[in-house]
């Protein structure tokens, strides 16, 4: 462990981030100065011209250009500092006002202003450490070539205060040692000062928390709409293939029976009539079952009385023997209840179908404002998002995301499988 840490002092020189940070400190200096001049001059000139017609358009231009420069910095930060910052979504109101008031442009302007002092610090630190560490470590080579005449005496090397020169072997070694220390410290120093740049990029050039939230909401809303549309399509298919077909068949049997009645009554017609009514009867009963299953699939009636009742029914009907634990201080919203119910149903079906499990468990509890649902089985494991049965799991993940929840799967090969759903309760 200690050895590894010691090695780190050397291996840090091989790290991309070290050289990236150094590059950023050097390149960033002229860029920082130019950016600062642009921001200050742009703001000042547009403010000065705001009484004329071109002041406002100019400001719009400055803000937009700052946004573009920000994008350049984002790229620079990604390649040199390794900061992964998403492109912020630009929501521009229509017209000139949109250009002037565009948030991300203003944040980039602020970035350019704050970047200036940082650029100076970066540059000074990087230059100083580079110069002194290289100078110090190479001192044993060049100290002899530096010489001056002091009090008629030829002195070599670097002059300390007074008449002390670094010209004895011990002193040369001392300078060398300082050089080594500075050299070893240089990567860390550069990385520390550019760390502030990383923070600045992350906070001013990326999406704001609010806009990230909006993005998530947009995505999950699309998921919710897709999910609802898919559900409707499924219901339509089930109706079409099930109840509707059965009712047509039932009507057909009754139609035939009616025609039998129109003719003459004989032993033979009676037999045929009985058979027709028999099949009509059967079809009517099948239709009732079909419709009941369909209705339950849309909204299980037991869910009206809460998760406990609905899941108890579900567990009792499940193909695997299922234990149920529920510890909920209060009822979640109807939407959350419905999602939890259908996820549990889907997960239990998966467990019975894919895992070869012998028993399953459902555990639901409220913890610190979160609803935790754990569905486990003692099967073969190996469940993954995206694996054969996986599209179902992805569907669940999307559905859970609509209420800001997350689904995690712990399913090593050989089992057991535990799927955890974590939904924040509002």
């Amino acid at each position: 462990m200690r050895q590894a840490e010691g090695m780190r002092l050397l291996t840090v020189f091989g790290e991309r981030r070290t050289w990236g940070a150094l590059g950023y400190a050097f390149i960033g200096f002229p860029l920082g100065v130019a950016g600062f001049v642009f921001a200050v001059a742009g703001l000042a000139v547009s403010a000065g011209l705001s009484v004329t017609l071109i002041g406002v358009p100019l400001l719009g231009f400055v803000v937009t250009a700052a946004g573009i420069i920000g994008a350049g910095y984002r790229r620079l930060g990604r390649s040199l500092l390794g900061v992964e910052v998403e492109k912020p979504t630009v929501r521009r109101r229509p017209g000139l006002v949109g250009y002037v008031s565009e948030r991300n442009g203003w944040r980039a302007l602020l970035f350019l202003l704050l970047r200036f002092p940082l650029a100076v610090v970066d540059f000074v630190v990087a230059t100083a450490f580079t110069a002194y560490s290289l100078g110090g470590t190479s001192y044993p080579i060049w100290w002899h070539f530096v010489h001056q005449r002091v009090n008629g005496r030829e002195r070599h090397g670097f002059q300390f205060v007074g008449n002390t020169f670094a010209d004895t072997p011990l002193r040369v070694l001392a300078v060398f040692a300082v050089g080594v220390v500075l050299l070893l410290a240089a990567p860390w120093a550069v990385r520390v000062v550019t760390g502030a740049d990383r923070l600045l990029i992350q906070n001013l050039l990326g999406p704001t928390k609010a806009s990230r939230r909006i993005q998530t909401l947009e995505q999950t809303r699309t998921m919710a709409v897709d999910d609802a549309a898919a559900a409707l399509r499924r219901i339509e298919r089930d109706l079409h293939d099930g109840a509707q077909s059965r009712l047509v068949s039932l009507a057909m049997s009754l139609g035939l029976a009616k025609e039998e009645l129109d003719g003459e009554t004989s032993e033979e017609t009676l037999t045929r009539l009985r058979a027709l009514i028999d099949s009509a009867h059967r079809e009517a009963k099948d239709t009732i079952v079909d419709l009941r299953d369909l209705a339950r699939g849309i909204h299980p009636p037991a869910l009206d009385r809460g998760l406990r009742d609905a899941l108890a029914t579900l567990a009792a009907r499940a193909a695997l023997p299922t234990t149920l634990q529920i510890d909920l201080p209060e009822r979640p919203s109807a939407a959350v209840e419905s999602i939890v119910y259908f996820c549990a149903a889907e997960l239990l079906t998966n467990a019975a179908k894919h895992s070869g499990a012998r028993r399953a468990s459902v555990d639901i509890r409220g913890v610190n404002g979160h609803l935790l649902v754990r569905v486990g089985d003692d099967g073969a494991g190996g469940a993954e998002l995206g694996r054969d049965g996986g599209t179902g799991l992805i569907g669940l993940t999307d559905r859970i995301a609509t209420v800001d929840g997350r689904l995690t799967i712990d399913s090593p090969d050989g089992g057991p499988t535990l799927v955890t759903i974590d939904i924040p309760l509002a």
Partner: protein
Amino acid sequence: MTTTKDRSQPLRVVIAEDSVILREGLGHLLQDRGFHVVAAVNDARGLEALVENHRPDLVVMDIRMPPTHTNEGLVAAIALRARQPDLRILVFSQYVETRYAAQLLAGDAAGLGYLLKDRVADVRDFIDALHRIVAGGTVLDPEVVSQLLGASRRTDSVDSLTPRERQVLQLMAEGRANAAISAKLHLSGGAVEKHVTNIFTKLDLAPSPDDHRRVLAVLRWLES
């Protein structure tokens, strides 16, 4: 009843329907009514080869079938007719879509039918419709006509139809001859003829003597 074919020889039928219940029910019904079901399949794939082999007098097919459960039946019907223009086809479906009706009847409409599945409940009418199709008539579900009437942009002319004339129009669309219409509505033959003439005048259509041509004329008019 108009049948071109000798009744002593049973009519040969191919059924394509993906619902097992309906496929079997329909098979029994048709056998019971003297048809000979030569093949019953659950999708439209391979239907061309089947028709080639069995040379049926009539194909009865669903619109929504595997694999996509959208309109493969309709596509197959149009393809079958393109290969064999005199093939008689009844397309039947849980819903009627006027778009589908228009696509199906876009070419020669003789010997084509488009009915709601519900129509099998009235067995006699259904069998009747099958015979009209085999005889080269055009049978449209009354629902198609009412949908078209409801959606037509030519509301003035449509509104000018009396309720009786609408009834006659629907029966015409079902491919019925004047005699059948008069029997159904308990009207004299002369009265039916008058209604038909009125309809054609109100819709500004050239009268057509041919039963299935006049169906088409009405359909095209409603769609335009």
